[in-house]
């Protein structure tokens, strides 16, 4: 796949990048192609060294020490790689003063992407899985790292490049996957957008609920999420959620900026 052999189309593509936030890619729906080696937006395959280090770190160290360089370093040592792997891992992220380090950003990205892929990997075309089941399953995946969610949230929602290039696109991608891979009805008009916003919203608010939840096995979070999804989907409430979501993002950003500064 040499991109340069593709000049005419590349040019027409460049002309559309002005609306980057709206950019999406066609999903081939047939099995005529070889399997992709990497899972976008990750730039390495799932069996690469980077993946091994990050998934080991996520499983063994993040639950107790959180999303930081220490967790990655311990994992690098466990697997017997040189500590220079740290800079290899962070290679695709640019350093930013608001975030800890490019490698940590990659760990966070890996956490989101790998769990999203994991969520729908067993679903097929004739799925009977409901949207609610997928949402609860995704929340359950984060139970092991529940004590680190507050810190994770702060990193994800710090306004800046990472939030616009990774956090928000991943959130929408997750909502998109949940709708596509469940038996949820999909739409051809504005409801396409409002439904995705509503699902993102249900997910994010449930996650915030989870941060404060002390109930056994996060039962209260699961109840909250079920209730949220029911209300949103059954009453068609998602038509009104666009505004709510905008407010939510704004308020959340302000709070997190404040918390960032108070930590410094």
């Amino acid at each position: 796949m040499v991109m340069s052999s593709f000049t005419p189309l590349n040019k027409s593509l460049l002309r559309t990048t002005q609306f980057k936030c709206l950019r999406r890619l066609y999903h081939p729906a047939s099995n005529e192609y070889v399997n992709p080696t990497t899972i976008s937006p990750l730039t390495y395959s799932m069996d690469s060294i980077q993946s091994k280090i990050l998934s080991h770190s996520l499983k063994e160290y993040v639950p107790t020490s959180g999303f930081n360089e220490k967790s990655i370093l311990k994992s690098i040592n466990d697997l017997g790689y040189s500590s220079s792997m740290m800079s290899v891992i962070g290679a695709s992220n640019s350093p930013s003063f608001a975030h800890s380090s490019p490698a940590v950003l990659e760990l966070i990205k890996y956490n989101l992407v790998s769990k999203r892929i994991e969520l729908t990997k067993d679903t097929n075309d004739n799925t009977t899985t409901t949207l609610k089941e997928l949402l609860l399953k995704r929340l359950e995946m984060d139970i092991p790292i529940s004590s680190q969610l507050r810190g994770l949230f702060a990193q994800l929602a710090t306004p800046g490049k990472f939030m616009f290039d990774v956090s928000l696109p991943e959130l929408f991608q997750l909502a998109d996957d949940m709708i596509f891979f469940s038996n949820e009805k999909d739409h051809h008009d504005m409801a396409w957008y409002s439904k995705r916003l509503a699902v993102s919203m249900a997910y994010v608010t449930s996650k915030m609920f989870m941060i404060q939840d002390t109930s056994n096995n996060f039962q209260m979070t699961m109840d909250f999420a079920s209730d949220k999804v029911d209300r949103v989907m059954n009453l068609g409430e998602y038509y009104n959620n666009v505004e709510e979501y905008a407010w939510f993002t704004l308020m959340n950003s302000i709070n997190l900026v404040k918390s960032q500064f108070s930590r410094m």
Partner: protein
Amino acid sequence: MLRTSLYNQSQLLSRPFSVLAPLKATVKNGNKSVKAGKHAEAKVPKYEQLSEAQRAYLDRVIRVDQAGELGANYIYAGQIFVLSRKYPHLRPTLNHMRDQEIHHHNTFNALQIKNRVRPSLLTPFWKVGAIAMGMGTAMISPEAAMACTEAVETVIGGHYNAQLRVLTNQFDLEDVSSPENKKGTPQEVKSLIDTIKLFRDQELEHLDTAIKHDSRRAVPYKVITEGIKGICKIAIWSAERI
């Protein structure tokens, strides 16, 4: 669920110009896993991945065509609403064209869901604009309505031809399963090409119909057709992007 049946539906639309086509189609387009015989197994091509540019292009094609067919459908709806009582003889013609537009629109709706394409954010505006355009021209006169159809279909015909040029020239992928990696176009893209070809031909029939129904006698012909052509081009440009 919906997705598999929709794929078959778009396959049905591929109509090569041949009397033997239906016979060939069952062998070539049939469900591969079921039909795969002794030799068929090795012949199923495996293509390299579509590039990002190619995927972005297909995304735009489906979005803009979905929006366009939605518009066409609503234009005819507006015309029928205004004209059908006063000019009953036009009703069958208009209904026939609208039925075809509905089929076009449904086909792209299905592709939009199947290939996970984002619909145009301006969809509400396309609906309102198209209905207004259909009703507005029909209220001037039946000829003006036909001039509107003529202008719209001229632009759409050209637009579909431009897409067909890119789709046939830019989607030669390496078949990794063949001995010397020879190039070919995936069935998925071929079937899209066939769909667009069929629709383009039907749009050009609509254009002929409009001219036969005196579109050229509309007053003021130039203003209506040129104005509408301009609007259509702007609409296409925005629906591809937004």
